[in-house]
């Protein structure tokens, strides 16, 4: 078996694909909260992707990729049996797993998949684990059965009310609190505004919040300094010191500004790529 080979490809919804990749060295050393860098082709970007699962025996790692730009769209067009060009990792500092008491693992969209291994490790460490899962609509809410099987309690919130309660994950957390659930710590992965408001609410409710940050990265190995974020007023590098940080004092607005820099370009390129991919040539020359 060649390294980087895609053993399983499973679409989870229209834009999200699960890959099981053969990569024994990473499978052997991965820990909850770490990520890998993927590259799909020569000249391709280095894309950081959270490790969702790993199996040291089989030598496999699992990642879940949402097509948000050209690179991720190209990843998701790879077929079973094909290979990623590069898979490097496991990168980042693992999440500190210990007995906190009762913990909430909060996932938004693809963040649900990313928070899953943290939930599992926290459960194994003897915590009472409550999953709070959020998405825009039911179709985008992934891995609920897996989370429900793992966690002591699972609540869902969708923006349109198509599944679980209608509202945001913050509404769900507030409700848990109002119902008398005493939560000690929260681990949040999702869109930046969701992590910002969840951290704020948790702080207010006396829950210690942690958020996994997704700044722009290049090498992902502690070299370029592109992923700098401000935590407790200090510059920290998410690729080596994070990506999970205590999130009470993270400057989320700065993170939003810094991650927005290439967004318009990303969107433009994705549209161009999809147009070219879907374009069936009728000129008769090909």
């Amino acid at each position, binding site marked *: 078996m060649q390294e980087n080979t895609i053993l399983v490809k499973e679409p989870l919804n229209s834009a999200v694909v699960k890959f099981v990749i053969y990569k024994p060295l990473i499978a052997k050393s991965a820990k909850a909260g770490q990520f890998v860098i993927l590259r799909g082709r020569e000249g391709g970007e280095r894309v950081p992707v959270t490790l969702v699962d790993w199996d040291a025996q089989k030598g496999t790692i699992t990642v879940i990729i949402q097509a948000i730009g050209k690179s991720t769209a190209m990843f998701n067009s790879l077929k079973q049996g094909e290979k990623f060009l590069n898979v490097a990792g496991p990168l980042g500092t693992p999440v500190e797993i210990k007995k906190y008491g009762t913990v909430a693992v909060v996932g938004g969209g693809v963040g649900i998949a990313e928070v899953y291994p943290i939930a599992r490790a926290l459960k194994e460490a003897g915590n009472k684990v409550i999953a709070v899962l959020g998405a825009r609509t039911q179709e985008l809410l992934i891995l609920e059965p897996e989370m429900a099987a793992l966690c002591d309690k699972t609540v869902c919130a969708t923006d349109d009310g198509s599944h679980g309660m209608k509202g945001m994950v913050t509404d769900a957390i507030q409700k848990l609190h109002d119902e008398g659930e005493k939560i000690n710590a929260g681990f949040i992965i999702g869109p930046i505004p969701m992590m910002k408001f969840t951290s704020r609410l948790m702080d207010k409710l006396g829950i210690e919040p942690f958020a996994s940050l997704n700044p722009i990265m290049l090498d992902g190995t502690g070299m370029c300094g592109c992923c700098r974020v401000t935590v407790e007023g200090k*510059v920290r590098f998410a690729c080596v010191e994070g990506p999970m940080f205590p999130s009470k004092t993270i400057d989320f607005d*700065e993170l939003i500004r810094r991650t927005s820099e290439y967004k318009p370009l990303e969107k433009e390129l994705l549209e161009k790529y999809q147009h070219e991919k879907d374009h069936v040539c009728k000129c008769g020359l090909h």
Partner: protein
Amino acid sequence: MPSPSSPRQQGKQLDPQIRKHNFEEVAQMANCPVGVQIPAFIALVKDGKIGEAASKIMETSLLPAICGRVCPQEKHCEGNCVLKEKFGSVNIGMLERYTADTARKEGLLKAPVCAPATGKKVACIGSGPSSLAAAAELARAGHDVTVFEALHAFGGVLRYGIPSFRLPREVIDREIETVKSMGVKFQTDVLIGATETIKELLKDFDAVYIGSGAGLPTLTGIPGENSVGVYSANEFLTRVNLMQAYKFPETDTPIKIGKHVVVLGGGNSAMDAARCAMRLGPDSVTVAYRRSAAEMPARAAEVEHAKEEGVQFEYLITPKEVLSDENGHVTGLKCTRNELGAPDEKGRRRPVEIPGSEFVMPVDTIIVAIGQKPNPIIAKTTPELKTTERGVLALDEEGKTTLPGVYAGGDIIRGGATVLLAMKDGIEAAGRINKYLQGK
């Protein structure tokens, strides 16, 4: 990358008690840090024996096409050339480059013959100049060597830091091919300290050389430094050189450049960043350095090239604050002007702020090129390895780390130096590793 200048090298001189009895040249051409036999190789070039000249260089340095291009010759060989005062120095760097390139082109370049296999295995961490030099020397001594690179391409700073207009990518590829032809194995995507620890490596290898290089950038710490449009030189150069963002959208990694760019710093990385920025088409690129031209650590040729290409230089400037608009985009850099005060411990005159000299540079891209810290990953995951307060790996007087069988060199022990000094460390460490393995 950015290179605090090494002190001016004093050329080796014959002992006065010996030389007063003979007519041999007083200054010895032995001030090449990697020991290239300069008069010998130049004599062979003069005789048109290019292949032999290349072999002569490669007796001590296996990367001549790279050294000829990026070494700060004016601080070493050319700076100590006996012809310098009267006639100007021999262009030793260019001759080395010519020799390496011509020998390669004409098929005369021979990889050195390796000693019979010793059966010992050595891991070299990183594939930058230090590790490459160590790997080549260890292979020459007959060891079974594997190079582990964290990124997707080999060469380390040669690939992500130094631009192709100064060091063409094919030159790096070819020099690495030479090392490969000596039997050295190369692996990408292995980040030692994460993918495998040093302790795990020591189960499979008899010795380890850590040449993992520089890490996170040093930033100025001034307010507003996380504004959009502020790059570290590492990020800027990595985008352009490693990820080839200048070919975007043919390649997938983009880069944004404003109309007016300022580069903070005065080392080689600052020059590389300024010259790369110039090629991305802004209206102006300015290098702002806190001391004067005389203290700039960059290689003289790079400063000249930058000036020729239209890069402007502002000396005696200290950045104070990054100004930005409501979207966090850079709109300017608040600075003060300095004058030179008393010399510091390295003998460079310290910049002293002139009161009331505050002004704003109207820029929209800022590149911070003031140095970097050693990469933290290996030290963090290997508690047995001691580091100094600067975060660099601590070595004993024999060049060993605090873990038996583990040696280190280059920026991981220097914090930020030159390709040449990194190579020198690699070559010297290879010698120590040979000795260590003989006793094993």
